[in-house]
């Protein structure tokens, strides 16, 4: 029997799981990332609920939820086809940076959008690893549990992902 109640699991982790899936939705081809993130979050907790009795006491339930969320995102993109966000579409849905000057604003926005697209072009496991590490703040044991791989492999996926992001940004800059 798990050592946490399901309602406490929702209370403690809903927001970060939603944030994680929202970030997946931002790098997908869907036209409504807010609705997609909501659907995926709902699906994640539904799957978690059905599998909850198998969660062993003492296991990392946060990493377990991330594992389910990652699988949900994966199967959604597999169904829909994971086409990287087109630059124009990405710009449209990009939130405003209110503090910066208008010209700087455009430059920042362009660069942020390029980074988003570069992330979307990574292999799924690397995108997940980079997102979990640098955006969701998970440590490597938790990333390994979420991606069902060794800690070394989790590190390698973050490293390779960042390396490819760097190459991709340099390439775009040269163009």
């Amino acid at each position, binding site marked *: 029997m798990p050592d946490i109640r399901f309602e406490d699991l929702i209370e403690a982790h*809903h*927001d970060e799981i939603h944030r994680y899936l929202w970030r997946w939705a931002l790098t997908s081809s869907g036209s409504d990332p807010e609705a997609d*993130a*909501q659907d995926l979050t709902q699906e994640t907790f539904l799957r978690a609920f059905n599998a909850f*009795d198998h969660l062993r006491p003492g296991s990392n339930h946060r990493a377990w939820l991330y594992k389910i969320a990652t699988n949900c995102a994966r199967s959604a993109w597999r169904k829909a086809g994971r086409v990287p966000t087109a630059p124009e579409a990405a710009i449209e849905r990009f939130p405003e940076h209110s503090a910066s000057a208008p010209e700087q604003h455009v430059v*920042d926005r362009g660069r942020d959008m390029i980074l988003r697209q570069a*992330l979307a072009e990574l292999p799924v496991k690397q995108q997940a690893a980079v997102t979990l590490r640098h955006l969701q703040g998970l440590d490597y044991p938790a990333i390994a549990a979420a991606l069902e791989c060794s800690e070394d492999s989790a590190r390698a996926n973050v490293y390779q992902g960042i390396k490819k992001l760097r190459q991709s940004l340099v390439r775009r800059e040269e163009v």
Partner: protein
Amino acid sequence: MSQYHDRDEARWAEDLRRSLPAPSAEAAAQSRARVNAWFESAAPTIVWQRWSTPIGPLFLAAGGEGLIRISYQESQAAFLAELDRRARLVEDPEVLAPYRRQLADYFAGERDRFSLPLDLSRLTDFQKRVLTTIGRIPAGAVWSYRQVAEAIGKPKAARAVGQALGSNPLPIVLPCHRVIASDGSLGGYAGGLPIKRRLLKLEGAQLI
């Protein structure tokens, strides 16, 4: 040299956060409300209460299918931890009144069998078999663990019977207190041996 060479971890994290910002607070609240609404409709509800009885405090819990738990646990947290982790818990003595009424009659010596819906769905088949079998022991009588084992057709399983009785979720109603060791000693009891002795006396059992 490109600005993208030799960037440290913190810098990547910062750039990625700017590129993929968190959702708005409204979007997060909307999603949370949706998940909570689904949970309320999907999860089983368990109502519970702490109740003072002549034999001491008891915790009771029931779901839609019937009584789930009668517990001698002293701490509320330990009692709640025994209940289905997926369920929504609601403290509501009102709903439990019908269960309390029959138990109160029993403690007053005015009833020696119960007609209450019981939810045994979380038990193994073996536990169910043992617990429904001991329901046939009349008030005032006692069986040995071995007799119960024989009654379920597994004469060598006296120890397993003892374990199944030890995890009886519905003591008193499923009268595991009526099972004692074959040498006449009381054996064990979740509520402690003084309570076991007291229940047997209440029922008029002849003890050595």
